[in-house]
């Protein structure tokens, strides 16, 4: 069962290990990221940050989709982490169980503008977001579980 799909460009870090994992009772973290899946250094550092109470899987986007579509993944309480709006949209398109996406942290970059404390979006991101909204997905901004959900359509 997918408990949360989160966009966070730091993937696994303090907020994820200390607040989200316990709040969701998640027992399986999936990092769905092509770069991380093939980068030993990233795999190692993500492994260090893993909370003791959960498993950590680091998979490419394609493998993550296969995993999530497999019936057996229903046995886990899953927290999915991606690092970009694009990847989140790709997952949501393939995995129908994902009806809501949490925007946790997207750092600012060239051509991006800040829409919330920890979220900066490019025009491309906004275009992807609009497609997702049109499909009826819930897109909410929260850094930690106790924050109030702010819907992304009110910010862009």
């Amino acid at each position, binding site marked *: 069962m997918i408990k949360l799909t989160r966009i966070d460009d730091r993937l696994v870090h303090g*907020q994820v290990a200390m607040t989200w994992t316990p709040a969701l009772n998640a027992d399986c973290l999936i990092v769905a990221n092509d770069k991380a899946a093939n980068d030993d250094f990233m795999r190692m550092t993500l492994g260090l940050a893993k909370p003791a109470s959960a498993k950590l899987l680091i998979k490419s986007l394609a493998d993550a989709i296969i995993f999530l579509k497999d019936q057996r993944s229903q046995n886990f309480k899953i927290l999915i982490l991606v690092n970009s709006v694009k990847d989140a949209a790709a997952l949501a398109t393939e995995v129908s169980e994902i009806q809501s996406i949490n925007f946790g942290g997207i750092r600012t970059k060239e051509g991006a503008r800040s829409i919330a404390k920890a979220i900066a979006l490019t025009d491309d991101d906004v275009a992807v977001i609009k497609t997702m909204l049109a499909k009826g997905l819930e897109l909410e901004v929260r850094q930690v579980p106790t924050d109030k959900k702010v819907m992304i359509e009110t910010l862009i």
Partner: protein
Amino acid sequence: MLITYLLLTLIAVFGHFEDFLGTTLLSRPLVLGPLVGLVLGDVNQGVMIGATLELIFIGNIKVGAAIPPDIITGGVLGTAFAIMSHKGPAIALALAVPISILSEMVISGLFVFRAVFNKQFNQYAQEGNYKGIQRLHILSGLLKPLLMGIIIFLALELGSTAIRSFLDLIPAWVQSGLQVAGNMLPALGFALLMNLMFNKRVAPYFFLGFMLAAYLKLPIIAIGGLGVIIALIVTQQTPKPVAANNDDFDFEDAPAETQPIEPQHQLSKGTLRKLFFRSLTLEANFNFETWQNTGFAFAIIPVLKKLYHNKQDMAAALRRHLQLFNTSPYGSTLIIGITAAMEEQNARDQDFDQESISSVKLGLMGPLAGVFDSLFWGTFKVIAAGVGTSLAIKGNVLGPLLFLLIFNVPHLLLRYNLTFIGYNAGTKFLQNLSKSNVMDKLTSGAAILGLMVVGAMPATLMNIKTPLHIGSSSSVVSVQSILDQIVPAMIPLGLTFLVYYFVKRQVKTTWLLLGLLALGFAGSIINLFV
């Protein structure tokens, strides 16, 4: 009065200076409360009020860019007004909570505003002007203590007469209601801590801590000691994790060998020591756009000065380190040390891939924040606050001192040594860590220890009783004495679990706070609780 107000303002400014002093918890109410008491001539009250506020804000932590209520401003003002009006901890609490929430908004605004300096920082970097970066880092960092100092001084100077006459109007029943509510509020803090640590696997340790405190009346420091022993025994006996099974649900944890970074160490011990000291200002210029970037640059500059002697190289390096950065301050020196080694290699080797410095930095900052935030906020802070408040609540000045020592002795020792480990062993150190099961042992041991202390807290630190009696006038039995015979501290434990239940259901903290206040008031009026 003016001098008193100035001194109180200085205390709050000192609290806000924590960002320059390594996030060493100097800013907590438990530490600032006694100082406020000292200025107002009643250290004892200051210590007790500080402990009360500490308990209420015990679950209040700073992770990532999520900013908790500003307990420095709220705590100092609340404590000061409560002592000046002789109204006790309940009034301090009634003032501190709203003030700290308001003040957090001001600080969030400042964190947004600080981003405007980033243009100037980048300009300095272009010019290779590291002195400019250092200066602006400190100046922008000073804005927070200065701004909050002005606000606090104005609040004292303009508001104290009004607030004191307002406090005089508060009728006795409101005050006793606040008293009871104040005694209940720690349940919220404990529930928030449980939310960080409690799960089925480690639940027994919570109850072990509770029983040691409730039945055996052990002080928290003893329970912490026992916790260390039990954590050591348990983690030594944990069997090695079973190898991954053969279906395709591979739970791979052990990554393959990566290219180790082999530095030739030439930086002196003195230079590395500077990195440690400068890392203490990591959070001074925290902002919502690039977070701790200038703190990182400030820390690494002594190395850059040693390595790069022409303007062009220096400019490139400065630009590299003004990129966004955010990690746990407690483990930051590990990344700073590793970065120093990589910069050294870059300076020596023409073909070195400069991009790899940034990617290692950015790759490590998130995961290590997870490791060190959990360890320090989840374990050391919990034990330090448990021991510290249990003494301070009785007016013992040793409480704040032990609080600072229990947290900062391990913190500063580790932080200092990690600088050298990072520099000398580089990423190899992390590889060895991830290959062994040391991290697993550490996290599960820390969870056991932290949870035992949290379990002891409702029994030791919450003072809620019922004055109810049953029976006729000839043979009156107090309900509390019956409860005490079954489970001592049953009411505090029950309340803590009640709040935890709602926390788990994602009820907002503010609602829980108001709910507990209402329950305390109602309970006090109908004489259910004292």
